[in-house]
């Protein structure tokens, strides 16, 4: 009886060497038993009747990405870009609770960590805690469920309804290839932190936050400039105490600041965005400009490229962030035209694209998203490509490891 283990290197669009494993005899995608002849060469699949050939078509374990961001889940733009890089559009689950915060695509599931609130709106009012406070969240359940999903088990995850402020009946989450946990506290609990294969912190400066919230809320009848300001101010103490410290644990921080190209700009339309990448993270090689580890300041606009006001300015340098070695890539300004984007892309290195112009293509695909003409869109797309690269490396490493184990 010949027993073989055949592995395929898993890319994000997997093609198993044996087709349609998911529907084969009702077996789970992990194993296929194919009847074949004995005495065949152990490296090929024998064709005639007889013994049993065991082919393990492993779909790989789930990788978990943590994204810390203030206000709102389905932090639409970043999530949509991320899931688009992996392939497919992420939609809320069909036929379920219409107020579900979960997003699902072919490869990715995005879970909103607000679903792990232990106190609903009334409960928080009674206890006098904001949603930012760890006391309003059930970290034990969060850890348990993220761990289960990572191990390949489906879980019944509660739903926090942002409209009613209540905890709704749970929904079933099946383990995807990539699980993204998004919310205020992905890196707060050390056990959950251990489960993360990669973590990102979206750090919006106060001025930009204020400008964005004005854009978001001014049209609402109940709001005024004062109320928006008061809301931000009131949340600040809890934010600084519980949320902000998570940035030291992140593998990548996207910092959004007001531009330095326009003096006294307070509209928050032109942005300066910094991508702070931790050095020494397994499977993650930071993006760089021209020469890794050196300090570069680059204005692409000039003879080969004409830009309109206020132009574009890049900077790259090694730095230290909360005691860690980091590399910082910074973009200030806006893209106006396609060729500016492709020009910039052609000068960046370690961007993990699969073909020349992939970043530009991704940015164009979502040109209606906010941030598509500045560093936020660019760096979110780059982070998405880095995560894809990470996923493929991890899956390859796992396949290699089990192959070794099978041989031994």
């Amino acid at each position, binding site marked *: 009886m010949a027993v073989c283990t055949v592995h395929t290197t898993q890319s994000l669009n997997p093609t198993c060497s044996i087709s349609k494993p998911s529907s084969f005899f009702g077996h789970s995608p992990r194993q296929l038993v194919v009847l074949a002849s004995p005495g065949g060469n152990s490296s090929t699949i024998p064709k005639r009747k007889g013994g049993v050939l065991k082919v393990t078509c492993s779909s790989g374990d789930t990788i978990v990405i943590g994204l810390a961001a203030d206000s709102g889940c389905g932090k639409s733009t970043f999530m949509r870009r991320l899931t688009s890089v992996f392939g497919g559009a992420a939609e809320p*689950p069909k036929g*379920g609770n219409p107020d579900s915060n979960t997003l699902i695509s072919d490869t990715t599931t995005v879970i909103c960590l607000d679903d792990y609130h232990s106190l609903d709106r009334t409960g928080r009012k009674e206890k006098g805690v*904001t949603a930012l406070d760890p006391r309003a969240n059930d970290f034990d359940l969060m850890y348990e469920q993220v761990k289960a999903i990572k191990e390949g088990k489906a879980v019944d995850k509660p739903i926090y309804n942002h*409209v009613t*402020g209540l905890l709704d*009946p749970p929904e079933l989450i099946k383990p995807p290839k990539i699980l993204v946990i998004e919310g205020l506290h992905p890196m707060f609990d050390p056990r959950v932190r251990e489960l993360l294969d990669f973590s990102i912190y979206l750090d919006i400066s106060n001025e930009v936050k204020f400008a964005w919230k004005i854009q978001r809320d001014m049209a609402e009848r*109940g*709001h005024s400039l004062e109320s928006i300001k*008061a809301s931000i101010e009131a949340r600040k103490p809890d934010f600084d105490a519980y949320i902000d410290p998570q940035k030291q644990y992140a593998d990548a921080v996207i910092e959004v600041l007001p531009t330095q190209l326009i003096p006294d700009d307070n509209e928050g339309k032109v942005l300066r965005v910094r991508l702070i990448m931790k050095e020494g993270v397994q499977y993650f090689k930071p993006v760089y400009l021209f020469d890794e580890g050196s300090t570069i300041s680059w204005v692409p606009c000039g003879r080969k490229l004409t830009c309109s006001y206020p132009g574009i300015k890049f900077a790259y340098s090694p730095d230290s962030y909360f005691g860690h070695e980091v590399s910082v890539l910074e973009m200030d300004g806006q893209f106006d035209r396609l060729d500016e984007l492709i020009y910039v892309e052609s000068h960046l290195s370690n961007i993990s694209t699969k073909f020349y112009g992939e970043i530009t293509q991704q940015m164009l695909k979502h040109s209606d998203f906010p941030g598509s003409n500045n560093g936020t869109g660019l760096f979110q797309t780059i982070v998405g490509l880095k995560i894809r690269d990470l996923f493929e490396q991890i899956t390859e490493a796992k396949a290699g490891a089990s192959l070794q184990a099978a041989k031994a």
Partner: protein
Amino acid sequence: MASIITPITSSLEAPKAVPKANHREGISTTRKPSRLRVQAMSPAKYKGTRMKEKHLKEMIEKKVTEAKEVCIGDDLSDECRVAWDEVEEVSEARAHLREKLEKYRDPLEPFCNDNPETDECHVSEDDVTDS
């Protein structure tokens, strides 16, 4: 490999059904809609969306007034911070809902996304090959 979520709620909508028509929308649940009335307002993709929108709008106003009252005395108190946090939560929900609704201006679009093979949505390609 698409992940399918099976809801654990007591009311399950038939997978192929179009979101239940309320009296203002014209999409019926039969296979061929006999009438299609397109509303000038944002299309209601989910059940009770219109109600939700209204509810959230009113809630924002209410919560802002509440927060202002609570904070009059001491604006560093727990109650004050919780009140403004609620304002933020509701504003975010409202913005999110607005985004969701703006996504589909054509009421046929979500229906066709879910049911591409129906007569209304089927796209045929005219392959002209030289023989």
